[in-house]
């Protein structure tokens, strides 16, 4: 399947430039409920991640905590799971979420990403206020978004999760906001 955002994919030149990539077809899953952290533990993953933090488990992907009892598991380099989304409990009180289908995944990299995001988002995403490992559930260009600050291929990036029906809209708003930063790079 081709990237639904192919026509919008935008990459400027130079290391300083911002790059927005579409990870909609990369694997992600989620689990929620009182049994969620036990389930993580039983799979050898850390369950003591504070809400709104993201933890890099190297080849086992990223674990993102959205509350005390909601965790997303993100695999930027794995293809979307081809199985049907589970709806039955994975363990007592651990309900799977349909992140693969409900949320689009965009990844933003480049030095001025916090300054660019300030055109769209009211949360300070500068390194001081939003260090690596931090997650913000907030709004971007008037729509809800989850922003995670993590490393990807040795570079600090923002992963953006927006409702999949808003992916084109969000990408359009991002690309418009990015253009002033990338003019010199092209």
């Amino acid at each position: 399947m081709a990237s639904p955002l192919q026509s919008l994919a935008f990459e400027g030149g130079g290391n300083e430039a911002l790059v927005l990539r579409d990870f909609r077809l990369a694997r992600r899953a989620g689990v929620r409920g009182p049994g969620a952290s036990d389930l993580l533990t039983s799979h050898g993953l850390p369950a003591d991640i504070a809400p709104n933090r993201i933890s890099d488990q190297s080849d086992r992907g990223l674990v993102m905590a959205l509350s005390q009892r909601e965790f997303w598991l993100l695999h930027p380099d794995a293809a979307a799971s081809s199985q049907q989304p589970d709806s039955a409990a994975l363990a007592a009180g651990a309900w799977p979420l349909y992140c693969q289908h409900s949320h689009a995944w965009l990844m933003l990299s480049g030095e001025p990403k916090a300054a660019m995001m300030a055109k769209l988002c009211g949360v300070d995403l500068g390194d001081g206020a939003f260090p690596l490992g931090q997650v913000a559930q907030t709004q971007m260009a008037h729509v809800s978004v989850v922003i995670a600050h993590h490393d990807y291929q040795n570079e600090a990036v923002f992963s953006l999760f927006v409702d999949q029906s808003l992916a084109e809209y969000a990408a359009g708003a991002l690309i418009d906001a990015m253009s002033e930063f990338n003019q010199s790079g092209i």
Partner: protein
Amino acid sequence: MTRGRLPAPFGQHIDRERPVTFTFEGETISGYAGDTVVSALLGEDRWLLSRSFKYHRPRGPLSLAGHDANTLVQTPEAANRLAEELPAEDTPVVTGQNYWGSLDKDRFSLLDRLGRFLPVGFYYRAFFKPQGIWHFWERFIRAAAGLGVANLAVQPTYSDKQYLFCDVAVIGGGPAGLNAALTAAEGGAQVLLVDENPYLGGALTYHRFDTAGTEAGPCLEQLRTAVTAHSGIRVLTDATCNAWFSDHYLPVFQGQRLFKVRARTCVLATGSSEQPVVFRNNDLPGILLCSALERLLMHHGVAPEQPLVVLAGNDAAYRTALTALDAGLTVAALVDLRPGANDPALTSALTEQGVPLYTQATVYQAEADASGTRLAAVRVHACSDEGTVGDDLAHIPCGLLAMSAGYMPAYQLACHGGAQLSYHDDRAGFSLSNLPQGMLLAGSVNSLHSLEAVCADGRNAGRAALEQLGLDAGAVEATECSERVNHPWPIFKHPKGREFVDFDEDLQIKDIINSARLGYRDIQLVKRYSTVGMGPSQGRHSALTTARLIARATDRTVSDTGVTTARPPVKPEPLGLIAGRRFHPIRRTSLHDRHLTLGAQMIPAGSWRRPGFYGRPEQRLAAIAREAQAVRSGVGMIDVSTLGGIDLRGPDAAEFLNRIYTYGFLKLPVGRTRYAVLTNEQGVVVDDGVAARLGEDHFYVTATTTGVDRVYRDMLRWNTQWRLELDIANVTSAYAAINVAGPNSRAVLEAAGCDLDLSAAGFPYLACREGQLAGLPVRLLRVGFVGELGFELHVPSLMAATLWDSLMAAGEDYDLQPFGVETQRLLRLEKGHIIVGQDTDGMSHPGEIGLNWAINNKKPFFVGGRSVTILAGQPLKRQLVGFTLGTGAPQPKEGHLVLRDGAIVGNVTSCEYSPTLDRIIGLAYAHPSDSEPGGSITIRTDDGVCVAAEVAALPFYDPDNARQTLCALKQPRPAWPAPCSRWHSRAAATRLWF
């Protein structure tokens, strides 16, 4: 021709190597790069810049700081631009505005002589009666009080917004602001420094703080260098902070961008506005504030040749006179309202240079030259501190008068934050108190004026800001300054009037006093009645005088009188900046591109875009009829992904649903669906959908497109209180949905390949199943919104396009027709199904819309249950009924009124022409006694034409619901579409999900 400019240190802002020209009123004006339009005009000794608003009096520069309306001009792009802020270099064409004829010879200036017929409140009083007289006079008055010409052809420019986060926002880059910024940054804070001028320095760039005039320069140099070099300070110049909002949220506009600054603390170093002296003809071109003259000399090096008189209410004006002498101006006299200067050194410095001094004296009247447009002389009289005027002391020819009666703190931003202004009789000035948490003042806005005190106060504010941030700050000490800068009564009434209090609005002393005499004692009412302070300068130069005049006229103190409320914005701001880059989120279903390929006309549904119908706009009715026909006689398919979807999972899922919706759900068998109506606590129907029990502990509930967010929100809140054991997930976007409807729908599904028994027995009406369709995992609901045999297919959204393509292929032999929302609305209306939100309003309870059958009264509780019971015990006030009309009748529209004996009893909620029935059909609220089928209701249609519609039983179509159980009408060809999906493989279908 350009007259000579002063050498350095005068004219710091102009580049003498780069002459520029522009035209003003068609005349070519020369200046230098760095000149404003005004400084270049003054450089050519052109002082008449505008005509006043009401009397069309000639006006020249007053503040040269962008703080008054005297230099409003027209450019081809826009009206009402402040010429003192327009760079001469970038403004090729400028004209005056608000005149009839020419700026120099404005025929409307006759109005000045008619002034006594135009008293305060003239418009309110003169045009109040007889009724309608205003409309006659309005066009003449609007022509005379014109404010330039709007350019209707102007193209909107791209403007946007950006958040800017900082620890300390310092507003104002004068000596106080520079010191505050530096201290805060040195203490480790991230600082934003904002100044409305193109350069930092504020008063340091023009004002003389000491007798010798040697302090400001080095101080500015040192501060500017340090601030510019500090990495913790971000400087925004040419940037205006236009308001203070809660929690230090500051809109700052610069160029085409509005910065939404969010600071943790905020230092206001906004300075103060120098105050004019109020005397007869104090508005003649050539009369300006001392600071304006200083700016003209220091920034632009313009030295007028005419003799200067300085009118002093404080020592600062003496220093202005010294600067003027340094610049080579002839100082004809210094007139001091006080008994003399506080600092004797100033007196001797002036007398040594031969400047005549008049103390305890004022300019009582200014006189114009023969043209009437330029100051020619002043008449000096003795005066007292209370405004009484004594002997005529001198008549002094002069072309220039610089005045300073004191300073008013630039209080606006502080007052936006709820600060209080109080007046101190001992120093005849206002000060600010009761500041919001985290707001600090520094410099002259804090009533400090000596350079030493201002700088110390700035450092103090910096330290106080650090303390607020919890950073090590060092001791904060209050700064003291004894310099008295305000004269208590610089107001001199003249029998012939024309002593202007408010230059923008042409208000004289008597106008203010008369407002009080007419009973408007409150300063807010005085403002509304007289319009004082309503002009572009927003009371900067008039508020203090007005407060004093009203206090005296009403026997109160100035503190009691106060000033009018300061509200945002501080300065006029372009609306484009407020709008910014507009964000209109648009949601697309996973099938959006498929619809476009098929030629769908997309229409909005909430924030979604949905196909209205497929075909060209001009063939709308035919397309809808064709699609409807396909559904009724063959098979159609519609994208219903926008339907809300909520998964309820857990042991209490059934109990939870039972409390939320009106029906009973505890005993709903697995594999069955039930219509779900949601009432709010008032018993009003707010949403509906279908609840499908997919498992003992698992319900999948649909909700309306626009209602699902609220339903989900309410569900979460209820369970926050009830603490039931279940998970509530909004899966609207996770699942796409396609409704396949029509007699051949079952056949199409079978052709697409399905692992379920789809027969009437195996998959009956209102059943639900999970299974594989075209190789994809699908939730199937057998429901009939459009009134035909039909299946709603819910599929994970990334697989939706594959499912659509498979169905299109499988349906080829059945002429499967995609249909749009408009067709669906018609089909459901034929079936009499209501749409919550269209056929209901904020008062509709179940009894009114025929949903009593969907209420379970035996349950212990459901939201709204008690209210529904109470409403059920009361007589109905209206009832939703079906109606039909012959095709010849005018077709009613949604919202048209239903009348009964001339009174309104209801309204039409839906109405369509039904090709199936060949009649107009609709739903309307009617009087309950008219609800029996066969009766008649009166509908008032367009242009007041009333039609009698027949009340009809619902549904209009297929009343026995026989269509839901039809079998296939046509046998398919034995074609088997190959599922082409990568999703087909279930090899990895293990329980391992990561």
